[in-house]
């Protein structure tokens, strides 16, 4: 026996006392939060007074609050020179610059970052010099980015040489961020240009070309022209782009070198298209001889015809008269961009030409616009003329028939004697995976056999003395002790993670305060992101969530909603609400997916794309979305979830916390049940009314807020919820996207979100690339959770089956030192406590029950069990709640106490139920595969 009864009692009291202390601390924190809120209001008041009186108030309590107010002011408004002078005098007098200047020597990265941000707003000599020193001495590139931005704020031209030199040999993400900062120096950088013109390093040349694109100067023009002959194709293309934007005449001129380089010719075509005359049209047509250029010729001519409609007549004549096949095709494509103009002319005397044009367009596959027109049109004469043309083509053209049958409305189809095609959702058959089942069976046998085996070994000497019944009794008692040890171990690990989370979240909160909007919205500071929301039968909530996703605060993002062959009206709901039109978008198929049926856009919402594809599951839809996305990162979102407006910004900004390449970022998930939503915007946060959902609220707080950030801190985060996670597109391409039947591994999983993280970190480790997986503790995504036990059971069953699939698929990583902390900490944790654990736990509960029924359960064991399972559980739940409420303010005091109550009672009953479900999930994994199971949506609560 480890401890005696008395010690156990003392531990019990200590734990209870700890709970009370934590609750009191948390309440105090809540009170302080309100005070801080008041502080912020005073800050606004001070800024307001500045505009009223014209003088910035000096008499502030502390240097820190003075600086914070001043920065807040400068964040929103440009401050005039006079005020800046006065403030600088004050800073000098009070020695504020000096005290922050000292901070640059701090061993902590975050403090040096803070020094950079604050010093950037001071223009005293001390501050300027301190920043320069920081930049020179600093060896962390991420801090250098902050310092560079600060020096730009100071307009410190003297810093330019150091900034320029820092580019050389730096990682590309650093160069991409600092180059725009340098370019924003404008005239000061130009003064420095002469000394750079003869430099040979790629970084410098890239900088000058980039500068030439936004800054007009003779020497830069000459420099750009010189770069056209560059041996480096990337630099050459950049230079050409800059030239065609700023100096198109140079490219059009006869002096421009004759070349057969396709990339150069593309730029020449673009420059020529600025001159909108028939002669120019002819010249551009000449380039059709080079096949790769066709697309560019068509694009250039289309732009010309749109800006100068008079050219249409010329192009129509060309269409009629040309005998050159390639010219004919190109003109057809150009004219097809004005198809709506021509279709109305089909009854005029140009009828024959236009009918021919329509025929050609259909033949070349440009059906979307014509189908769209026919479905809307109310004039039967025009309709008949178009159908007349189309009917001739239908016989020989299967694709055209299929397009028509799918998208034309029934009445018109009948005229063409076609049938409306209805695609029935395909039933997926999930195959049993033999190796997975073998693995799971072995583990199961081992777990079940392990304890009896140990028992036999340890107690074999006693067997002779005991009757069989007594041996069984001994076994039961021993097992009860095992449960005590097991629970204590699990909860001990939780507590460690919890402490790590506490550290991680306060660090993140501090860093977030340093990231000012003007900095985050600067070019290239944050990566561009494609938000991808797969939707399967989300008719009820799709508009709400799309609206929320279209109104995110983020510098550069697009939204891609993927309709996964829904059997309900999801697609049509989107089309009619956002007035979408079918669009022939070109995209690369890096990842294999189920066929895409159509892409829809609204020209007025350029950042919004809807993809309609055949049903293939969530992972397949995400892969399809990734193919279509045009940004560097993508963010997978559940279509039934709401993102807070700043969630994406907060999540992506964690990439500015570390040096390494970020491959993935996860965000918080909260249950939305109970909250009020209007037009995709969260109006009021409230706890769910339903008990099942309420219990999950506590669970989510524990798992997300208080758990994952700790894992992330020790580079072992392996779960990023499918409801909200950002990934590097480049890396995901390398590993073949989400696991689907269509992709390279030819298998499905029901835990595709976790599997992707495991695989990407495995990939990075195998390639020995430094990388980070972040977790943003303040980026919130609100999602609907099951309100009925049956549905919740199914969800948990699915989660657990997913986990088992992943552990079996990646079992090579478990306890494998070559995978670093992932192989030694994260994977073993999942293996022991998430996979094997529930098996032991449920056995343990059964033994406790057996002991209780047979009177074997003495008060001592009961007390130990109570401490190790319930008391520690309560401590963890309460601490999690307090960490959640530390920096943010989600719940009212009343709700806080409801959650506290929940934190206590969920440890008896609910947790055990979840463990039981997990065991059931284990056995289900050995049986026939089941897929996803249903999720009943009721839609968000409307105001």
């Amino acid at each position, binding site marked *: 026996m480890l401890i005696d009864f008395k010690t156990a009692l003392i531990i019990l009291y200590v734990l209870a006392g700890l709970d009370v202390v934590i609750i009191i601390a948390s309440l105090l924190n809540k009170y302080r939060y309100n005070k801080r809120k008041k502080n*912020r209001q005073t*800050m*606004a*008041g001070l*800024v*307001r007074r500045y*505009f*009223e009186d014209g003088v910035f108030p000096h008499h502030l309590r502390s240097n820190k609050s003075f600086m914070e107010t001043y920065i*807040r002011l*400068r*964040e*929103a*408004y*440009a401050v*005039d020179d006079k005020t800046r002078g006065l403030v600088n005098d004050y800073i000098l007098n009070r020695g504020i610059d000096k005290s922050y200047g000292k901070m640059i020597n701090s061993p902590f990265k975050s403090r040096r970052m803070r020094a950079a941000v604050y010093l950037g707003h001071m223009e005293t000599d001390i501050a300027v010099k301190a920043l320069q020193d920081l930049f020179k001495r600093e060896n962390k590139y991420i801090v250098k980015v902050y310092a560079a931005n600060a020096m730009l704020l100071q307009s410190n031209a003297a810093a330019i040489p150091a900034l320029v030199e820092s580019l050389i040999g730096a990682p590309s993400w650093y160069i991409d961020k600092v180059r725009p900062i340098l370019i924003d120096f404008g005239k000061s950088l130009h003064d420095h240009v002469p000394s750079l013109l003869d430099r040979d390093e790629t970084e410098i040349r890239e900088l000058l070309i980039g500068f030439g694109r936004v800054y007009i100067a003779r020497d830069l023009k000459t420099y750009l022209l010189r770069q056209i002959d560059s041996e480096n194709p990337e630099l050459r293309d950049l230079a050409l782009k800059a030239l065609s934007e700023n100096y198109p005449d140079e490219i059009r001129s006869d002096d421009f070198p004759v070349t057969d380089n396709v990339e150069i010719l593309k730029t020449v075509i673009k420059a020529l298209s600025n001159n909108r005359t028939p002669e120019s049209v002819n010249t551009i047509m000449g380039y059709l001889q080079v096949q790769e250029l066709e697309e560019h010729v068509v694009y250039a001519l289309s732009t010309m015809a749109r800006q100068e*409609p*008079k050219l*249409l007549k010329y192009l129509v004549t060309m269409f009629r008269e040309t005998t050159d096949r390639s010219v004919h095709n190109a003109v057809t494509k150009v004219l097809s961009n*004005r198809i*709506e*103009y021509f*279709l*109305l*002319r089909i009854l*005029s005397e140009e009828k024959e030409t236009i009918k021919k044009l329509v025929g050609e367009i259909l033949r070349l596959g440009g059906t979307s616009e014509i189908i769209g027109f026919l479905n*809307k*049109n*109310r*004039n*039967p*004469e*025009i309709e*008949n*003329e178009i*159908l*007349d043309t189309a*009917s001739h083509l239908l016989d020989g053209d299967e694709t055209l028939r299929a397009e028509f049958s799918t998208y034309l409305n029934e*009445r018109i189809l*009948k*005229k063409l004697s076609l049938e409306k095609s209805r695609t029935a959702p395909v039933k997926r058959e999930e195959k049993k995976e033999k190796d997975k089942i073998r693995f799971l069976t072995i583990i199961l046998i081992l777990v079940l056999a392990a304890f009896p085996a140990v028992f036999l070994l340890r107690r074999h000497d006693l067997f002779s003395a005991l009757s069989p019944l007594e041996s069984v009794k001994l076994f039961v008692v021993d097992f009860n002790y095992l449960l005590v040890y097991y629970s204590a171990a699990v909860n001990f690990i939780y507590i460690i993670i919890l402490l790590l989370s506490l550290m991680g979240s306060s660090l993140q909160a501090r860093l977030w305060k340093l990231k000012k*909007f*003007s900095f*985050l*919205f600067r*070019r290239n500071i944050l990566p561009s992101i494609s938000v991808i929301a797969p939707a399967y039968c989300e008719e009820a909530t799709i508009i709400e969530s799309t*609206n929320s996703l*279209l*109104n*995110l*605060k983020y*510098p*550069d993002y697009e939204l891609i909603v993927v309709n996964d062959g829904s059997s309900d009206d999801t697609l049509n709901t989107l089309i009619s609400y956002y007035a979408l039109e079918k669009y022939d978008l070109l995209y690369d198929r890096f990842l294999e997916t189920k066929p895409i049926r159509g892409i829809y856009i609204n020209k*007025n*919402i*350029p950042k919004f794309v809807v993809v309609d594809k055949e049903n293939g599951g969530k992972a397949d839809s995400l892969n399809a979305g990734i193919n279509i996305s045009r940004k560097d990162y993508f963010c997978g979102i559940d279509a039934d979830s709401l993102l807070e*407006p700043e969630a994406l910004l907060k999540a992506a900004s964690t990439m500015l916390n570390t040096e390494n390449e970020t491959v993935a970022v996860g965000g918080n998930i909260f249950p939305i049940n109970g909250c009020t939503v*209007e*037009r*995709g*915007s969260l109006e009021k946060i409230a706890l769910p009314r339903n008990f099942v959902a309420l219990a999950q609220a506590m669970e989510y707080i524990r798992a997300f807020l208080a758990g994952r950030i700790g894992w992330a801190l020790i580079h072992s985060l392996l779960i990023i919820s499918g409801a909200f996670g950002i990934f590097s597109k480049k890396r995901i391409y390398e590993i073949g996207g989400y696991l689907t039947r269509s992709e390279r591994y030819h298998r499905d999983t029901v835990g595709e979100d976790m599997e992707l993280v495991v695989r990407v970190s495995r990939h990075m480790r195998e390639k020995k690339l430094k990388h980070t997986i972040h977790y943003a503790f303040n980026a919130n995504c609100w999602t609907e959770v099951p309100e009925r036990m049956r549905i919740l059971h199914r969800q948990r069953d699915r989660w657990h089956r997913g986990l088992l699939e992943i552990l079996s698929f990646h079992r090579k990583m478990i306890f494998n030192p070559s995978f670093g902390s992932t192989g030694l900490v994260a994977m073993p944790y999942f293996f022991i406590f998430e996979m094997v654990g529930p098996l032991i736990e449920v056995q343990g509960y059964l033994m406790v029950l057996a002991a209780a029924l047979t009177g074997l359960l003495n008060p001592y064991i009961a007390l130990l069990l109570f401490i190790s399972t319930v008391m520690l559980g309560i401590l963890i739940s309460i601490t999690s709640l307090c960490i959640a409420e530390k920096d943010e303010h989600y719940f009212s005091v009343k709700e806080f106490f409801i959650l506290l109550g929940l934190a206590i009672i969920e440890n008896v009953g609910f947790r055990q139920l979840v463990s039981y479900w997990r065991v059931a999930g284990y056995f289900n994994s050995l049986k026939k595969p089941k897929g996803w199971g249903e999720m009943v949506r009721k839609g968000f609560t409307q105001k």
Partner: protein
Amino acid sequence: MFRGLPYAVIFILVINSLPRYNFRTMNTEFYDNIFWVGDTEQVNALHCNPYLLRDGDEAVLFDPGSSLDFEKVFQNVTDLTPLEKIKHVILSHQDPDLCSAVPLFEQKGLKARIACHWRTSVIIQYYGITSPFYLVDQNNYRLELESGRTLQFIHAPYLHFPGAVLTYDPVSRILFSGDLFGGFTLNWGLFADDGYEEAMQAFHESYMPSNDILRPVMEYLLSMDIGTIAPQHGSIINRDIRKYIKSLRDLECGTFLSPIKKAITSIGGYAGLCNKILKRYYSLFDPEDVRDVFTDTDIVLDDESSLIKDFSATGRELWNRLFELVYTKKGTSWITVIASTVEKLSKEYDIGLPRIFESVIYDIEKAVETLSDENRHLKDLNERLERNLQNTREKLIKCPVTGLYNGTFFRQYLETETINSFNNNEDFAVLIIDLDNFSRINFNYGNKTGDETLVTATYIIRQTMAETHLLFKLEGSRFAYYIPETTGKDPVETAEKIRLAIEGSDSFIERTTATIGAVSASEIYAENLSHAECLRKIIDICGLRVSIGKNRGMNIVCHSSSLDASREDAGKILLVDTDEMNLDVLGTVLKQAGYAVFTCRDGLNALDVIERQNPDIVICELMIPKIDGLSLRKQMLKSSEMKNKHFVLLSYQKDDLSVDRAFENDIRYFLQKPFMMSELLGIIRSFSHAD
């Protein structure tokens, strides 16, 4: 030469002279207290179906029939109900085959109200009907019986009469459909059988003007819960209702028919075509009779299918031969009954009419000259009606470019059309739509493109147009748009819809906009003018409002004449941002500068405040919840009231894409945060100077 009323007259006459069949009497109550009261003896191809509905102490008579079968119908009706209980007679349209019995009923002592559309009422007075009218169009298209049972009317304009109505009884779910769903049935039965669909199509091909007009009504019927269709000709349809409605919805018919040309081989050559005609004959006549035509001829029919199996003639010759045989054996009636179908098929497969048609028509026209006295009476009546229509038609002058009726017609139309509304003080509205860049287009691209633009505008307006509205072409680049029976904001909403459709269309040679003046009659009624003065004033004011709109910068809907309506509220500013400090600070600064300031924290709320408070200037952050800044601006542009408000965009996010979109949405000021307060204040001051 083959179309329209004269043809119909000839047709009826010919059909009437056909031999009559004897039918067994049958139970004519086909729904609880709803009876078919037609004449079983008096049967011809265009069988007339009067119906009687008993409801408590009342009875309603539907389309009572012609003078020819009056005696029998009267007998049937009075067997079922005493004459004085008939309180309403419903007339679906103006044709003699259903109206000419009414005066005879009146002579027998009928005291009922005649329920019909006003257009019907104008014409049927010529039958000598003296009973009072109940105009359904002025009674919300409803007729309430004493018991509370309400009959609903569905207006089916130009099917085949402008005032045609269908009656729907929600209790029995019966649709009394008038001419619609009628059929040519020499082989008549009270209820529709398998061949009825063909017979119905044959009838509609002859009588209905075009699919364009037929389709919308059928689409509407598809949305209703109909159990039975009781047409005025042909048979009652009591099953597969939707099949029949869809069949008519998709039917190509009428004078304006321009079918898709098909290759004759696709139907199986001339033989296939002839078989199509044969099938139609089988549905119309006794199959034995049809087969009889071909006995002992060179055209051999298959025993089983009764279709052409073998023939000595080929191609076109067979086509001609078939009708020659029919004509010699069966006479003109068999030719006329199929004429529309033949004409349609000839067009569709691009082959000429069969030879016999030319000569037969000549014969028929001659035959008309020698009609019996009994029939002459009817013919005179119809000629009178025809003259009436002809008179009006002569006055109609159409715009040669757009094919729309022109300004002269527009004014006359208003005079006749609005008199009822005027007398009842009911509202209607007129819009004048002027294309803003018409003269520019004419100048830049030539007159031909100018004309094109007018045609395109016509097309676009028609795409958005409601069924009951009418479009006219005035002089120059102006159109007039008539909205009958309006309420409140309707005309402005319609006008905005048109304005946006034109602005958003990609079908013009270049982006084109329209300025629209809108006037509601109710604005004028208060002034106690005569009808003519009132109309003149409406047109004048409408023109004036177009000019005002043009002065205000075009692409606008102007529905009030006062020039300075928007001036009163000068000095109101709306701030939209999620940054509390900015709202506070900017709000204070602007208030000090003397402006009234409103603040909003999301786009939806902002839109609401703009509508209610009518601020002059909106200062807005791009990234705001619910509706983002640019979308908010877009919403504002959709309304003529909001579109001219000054708009300043403020944001941390200012990149190529957002700047492009800002310009597209007519935003001239886009400041990047941190912004200069003095710059913003300067911009706001410059707005005040501009006003």
